[in-house]
C-alpha cells in the first residue's frame, strides 16, 4: 500500500469548545489507484487530506492519535524539515480554486520553475525550460509565450491545468486533489478530470480525489470512501456503491442527484443539517437524519461492519447495513 491512514483523530480547539473534525479515519491508496473521498462540507474530508499533506494549521488543529504510513514510514513521526521534503517531491496537492492558489504577483513560469529550483537545485534557465515543457504537457497552447504571463491572464480551466502541472512537476507518487473541478465550468470540468486521470495513468500515481460531486467520482474513481461527521461511514469499489449502497447516508446522497427520468418531480434532500462538530450526536452520528434509525442507533456507535454479502472488500458503519443493502 502506497499510503495508509490508520485511525486518525484530529480536533480543533475553538471558542465554542473542541470540534472533533476527524474521528478515527482509516483509508489506503495503492500506486495507480484512485480513491474518491466523498462527503458534505464539514465531514472532515479536507482536514484528513491536509493532515496527510502536513499543512494542517497547528494550533488550532491538533492530531490526537493515528498513523499516516507513506511507503511504510509514519509521516507523523518525521521532523518538519524531512516532512517538507516529502511535500511536493513525493506527494502533492491540487486545490479547489486555482486562481487563489496561484501567487498573483509571480508569473506562472516563475511558480512552475520554483518547483525545480527548490527541490532539484536546478539553475533558473533550466527550470524555466522545464516550466515550458510542463505547460506543454498539460496542453496549454503557446506555452513558450504564456510562461511569462500572470495567473489572472489565464482562464479558469487553464489555471487549474497550471496547478496540475505544478503538482505533477516532480512526478510525485501521490496526488491529493481537493475538489479540483468545483470552481470550473461544467464543460471544462470533464477536460480537467480527463487530464488528471491521464497523467495519473502515465506516472502510475496514487490519487485521492476529494469531492462532493458523485458525477465526477463515477468516471474516474476505483473505490469510494464516504465520510460523515469525521468518520468513514461506507467504503466500497465504485460500481458496487452505485448499484446498492450499504449505508442510509450514501443512499440519501445518491437519491439527491438530479436525474433526467425524474424531470418535474421534487428533488430528494436529506432532512436536517450536518451535525455541529463540537456536539456530535451520541451513537451513530447520522441517526437524527436517518430514515432507518432505531433505538440502538441512538446509543451504540456502529463499527465499520464488513459487508459480507459482497465479493469485493466493502465496509459500512451502519447497524442495519443488510436492510439498507437490500432495501
Amino acid at each position, binding site marked *: 500500500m502506497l499510503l495508509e491512514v490508520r485511525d486518525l483523530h484530529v480536533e480543533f480547539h475553538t471558542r465554542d469548545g473542541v470540534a472533533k473534525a476527524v474521528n478515527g479515519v482509516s483509508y489506503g491508496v495503492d500506486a495507480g489507484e484512485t480513491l474518491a473521498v466523498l462527503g458534505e462540507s464539514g465531514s472532515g474530508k479536507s482536514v484528513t487530506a491536509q493532515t496527510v*499533506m502536513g*499543512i494542517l494549521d497547528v494550533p488550532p488543529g491538533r492530531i490526537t492519535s493515528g498513523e499516516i504510513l507513506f511507503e511504510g514510514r509514519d509521516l507523523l513521526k518525521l521532523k518538519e524539515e524531512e516532512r*517538507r*521534503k*516529502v*511535500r*511536493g*517531491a513525493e506527494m*502533492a*496537492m491540487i*486545490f479547489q*480554486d486555482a486562481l*487563489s*492558489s*496561484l*501567487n*498573483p*504577483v*509571480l*508569473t506562472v513560469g516563475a511558480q512552475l520553475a*520554483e*518547483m525545480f529550483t*527548490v*527541490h532539484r537545485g536546478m539553475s533558473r534557465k533550466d527550470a524555466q525550460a522545464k516550466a515550458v515543457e510542463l505547460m506543454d504537457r498539460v*496542453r*496549454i*497552447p*503557446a*506555452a513558450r*509565450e*504564456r510562461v*511569462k*504571463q*500572470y495567473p*489572472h*491572464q*489565464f*482562464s*479558469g*480551466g*487553464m489555471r487549474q491545468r497550471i*496547478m496540475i502541472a*505544478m*503538482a505533477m512537476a516532480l512526478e510525485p507518487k501521490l496526488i491529493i486533489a481537493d475538489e479540483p473541478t468545483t470552481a470550473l*465550468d461544467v*464543460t*471544462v470540468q470533464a*477536460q480537467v478530470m480527463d487530464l488528471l486521470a491521464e497523467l495519473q495513468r502515465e506516472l502510475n500515481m496514487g490519487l485521492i480525489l476529494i469531492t462532493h460531486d458523485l458525477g465526477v467520482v463515477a468516471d474516474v474513481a476505483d473505490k469510494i470512501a464516504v465520510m460523515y461527521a469525521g468518520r468513514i461511514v461506507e467504503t466500497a469499489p465504485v460500481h458496487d456503491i452505485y448499484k446498492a449502497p450499504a449505508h442510509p447516508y450514501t443512499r440519501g446522497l445518491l437519491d439527491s442527484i438530479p436525474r433526467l427520468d425524474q424531470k418535474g418531480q421534487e428533488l430528494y434532500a436529506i432532512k436536517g443539517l450536518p451535525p455541529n462538530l463540537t456536539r456530535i450526536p451520541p451513537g451513530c452520528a447520522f441517526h437524527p437524519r436517518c430514515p432507518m434509525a432505531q433505538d440502538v442507533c441512538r446509543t451504540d456507535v456502529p463499527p465499520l461492519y464488513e459487508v459480507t454479502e459482497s465479493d469485493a472488500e466493502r465496509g459500512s458503519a451502519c447497524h442495519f447495513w443488510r436492510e439498507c443493502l437490500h432495501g
Partner: protein
Amino acid sequence: MPEQEPYEPERAIAGTGMGGTMDLGTSEAVTLEQPPGPDGADPREKPRSLWSDAWHDLRRNPVFIISALVILFLVVISLWPSLIASGNPLKCDLAKAQEGSQPGHPFGFNGQGCDVYTRTVYGARTSVAVGILATLGVAVLGSVLGGLAGFFGGGGDAVLSRITDIFFAIPVVLGGLVLLSVITSNTIWPVIGFIVLLGWPQISRIARGSVITAKQNDYVQAARALGASNSRLLLRHIAPNAIAPVIVVATIALGTYISLEATLSFLGVGLKPPSVSWGIDISSAAPYVRNAPHALLWPSGALALTVLAFIMLGDAVRDALDPKLR
C-alpha cells in the same frame, strides 16, 4: 464615410484585458483539438506585474509628478547645496541683522545677520537626511519584527503586540524632551534613533496585519503543500503581497518625521546650533516675527512644502498600489 468602422489599435489593445482571458475559457474545447493557434496567447497583451502596473498608474498621476519633482529637487540640493547657494550658512554679519531682501540675498537676513536663503537651502540637507534615514530604519525594523510576528504568531506575537501598545502610549514630543535632553551629541543620529525607536511600532502593526492577511491566501497554503520552506513562503509568497501598505505608510510617515525633527530642533532637543536646520531657524526667528517675518516665513515655507510633497507622494503611491481604495 465608409460603413465599416476603421481599425483602432488603441481600442483593440484595451479590449484584450478581461475579454481576452475570458475568450480562452469558452474556446478551450477548440484549442485542445487544434495546434496552438494565434489565439492561444495574445501577443498584444504584454504581461504586467503589480509594480509595473503601479508605475504605469503613477506616471499618469499629476499629484505624483509634482510631488516627485519637488522631492527630486530637495534631494539634489541636499546632496549639492552649492549648486544654487554659493554662500556659507555659518558666515553671519551682525551688522546686517534682520535686514530684508536685497541683491544677492533674496530672502534677507535673520536676527544673527545670517543669509536666510543660504540657510534655508542648507537646511534641506538635515531634513531630507533625517527623513529618509529614519524612515528606512523604521521600515526595516518595523516590517521585520511585525512580519515575523504575523507569520509565526503565538507567544512572540503576543509579546510584540503588547510592546507596540506600550510605545503607542508614549507622547512623541514629551518622549523627545525627556530622552534627547540627556544626549549631548550634536549630530543627526540621536534624532534618527529616537524617531526609529518611537516609529517602528506603527509600521510593525501594519506589517503584521498585512502578513496575516497574505498568509491566509490559498496560494501560500498551496506553496506549502508543494514543499516551500518557511523562509521561502515569507520572502517570495507573502512579502511581495504584503509590502504595499508598508510602503504607503512609510512614505507618508517620512513627511511627518521631517516635521518631527523640526519640532525637536525648535524645542532645542533635536539639533543645536551650529547645525543648520529649519527647526533651529524657525525657533531663532520666532521672537522677532514682528520685525523680520521673512526670517520665519522662508524656513517654515520650505518645511511645509517638503512635508506636503512627501504626504502627496504617499497618497499617490497608495492609489497606485491599491486601486480598490479609489
